[in-house]
């Protein structure tokens, strides 16, 4: 996980490891659990951007639902190389 330089990405990953899958709104609500990691993750826009970058890496899948995007951790970020 150390290779994820971007703290917002680490923030989203840490939250998804607690609650998987989770909506953008749920991720936003859980930021307080990781105050240091999530300090820069100020808006849902940061969550969406971090989530999209995890989708590109194949670590997370994104689905659209009536409550917005649902982000699901599909591979262990620790093994991602």
């Amino acid at each position: 996980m150390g290779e994820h330089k971007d703290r917002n990405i680490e923030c989203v990953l840490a939250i998804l490891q607690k609650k998987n899958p989770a909506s953008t709104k749920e991720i936003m609500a859980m930021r307080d659990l990781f105050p240091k990691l999530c300090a820069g993750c100020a808006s849902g826009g940061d969550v969406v951007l971090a989530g999209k970058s995890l989708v590109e890496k194949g670590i997370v899948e994104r689905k659209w639902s009536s409550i917005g995007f649902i982000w699901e951790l599909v591979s262990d970020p620790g093994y991602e190389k």
Partner: protein
Amino acid sequence: MKNNKGVKMVVWSRIRKDFPVLNQLYEGKNLIYFDSACMALKPVQVWNAMEYYYKYLGACGGAGRSTHCLGLETSLLTEEARKKMTSFINASDVNEIIWTRNATEGLNIIAATIPLKKEQNIVTTTLEHHSGMLPFLKRSKEVGSEFRLVRAKNDGTFDIADFEKQIDDNTKIVSFVHASNLTGTIAPLKEIIEIAHDHGALVVSDEAQYAPHAKLDVKNLDTDFSVLSIHKACGPTGVGVLYGKYDLLEELDMFLVGGDVIEDVIYENGQITAKYLPPPQKFEAGLQNYGGMMGASAAVDYLQNIGMDNIRQREQVFSKKLLEGILEIDKFDVLGPLDYKQRTALVSFRPKSAEINHNDIAEYFNDMLPQHKILMRAGNMCVHPFQYQIGMSPAKGEGIIRASLYIYNTINEIEIFLSALEDFAKIIE
């Protein structure tokens, strides 16, 4: 082309062609750009002007700089740009125009350099962009002077009586947003300026969202200072304008000092004495963004060729259609006045039942439509205080989506958007 009343007719489809960004498919989809309140797109005329500088000049200009042929032409073109800007806002004199990086820098210059005493107060409103509020909050804290707020009404309009209550004979300056980037409200600036002047107070008007969309006449308004954001007016990024009445600019202290602001720096008897140039040079420290000024000049030409009244008229048609369309769907709360005539062509909205984060909505329109990407901004638009006032909590991640239109948009795009929004409302029901 003129109509039978002799009024210039604008062929809007031709205008759109000047913006190649809109004539591309992005990831195979058509782009609908509804984010002009953040950043306006740039027509070819603007990049041609900038390209000319970078390709054929590339030199430094301005007072006391190189006088070779390239430096001279750079100076001539940038002074021409200053003249164009003077006429664009109807200032009295070219020396009242100061180039800045953006509107924020202009506001910081005023807030930091205006003579202010502890017993004086600064007045601003709850609807200000943070850039029109925080520089003044910071300064008032530094000096220990009172910082007063006029509360906008919850519909984003103002009650003039509230200004009469807050502005008094101790008010030094009123910082005020002419057109809001959140609610689109066009405020009664002239009346507010009159109240301020009756009390001997100065006014700085934030024109970032007004000047690109309607005729700004600083002389007629009698505003003391105004700031403009050129990147919202089809111009290049990194260029802004600060306007100030000349005698007031003379009174202001320096903001940045160094090269290009001085007449002489004398070393005598072991002492350094700096002699500064008069405005506008005294506020333009260091080598400047010459290419940007030329781009700004082309942008202003471009807008004036269309005609600011034509732009305002066109945007009112957009505003009416967009506002009424969103309201008709009846699933979204709209921020700001419900009368389109009181607005610029931007609408901020959010779902009435907020189970969904606003950023997801912007991303839905960016990514999930089959044929289009509708580009809007989601967030708090740097106007947190007003959102707290109306019961939203930016801290808890609550915000809005903003659709903001400009000269290159079309009615057809609004229709596509409204139809997609209606479908979207059904999905989240």
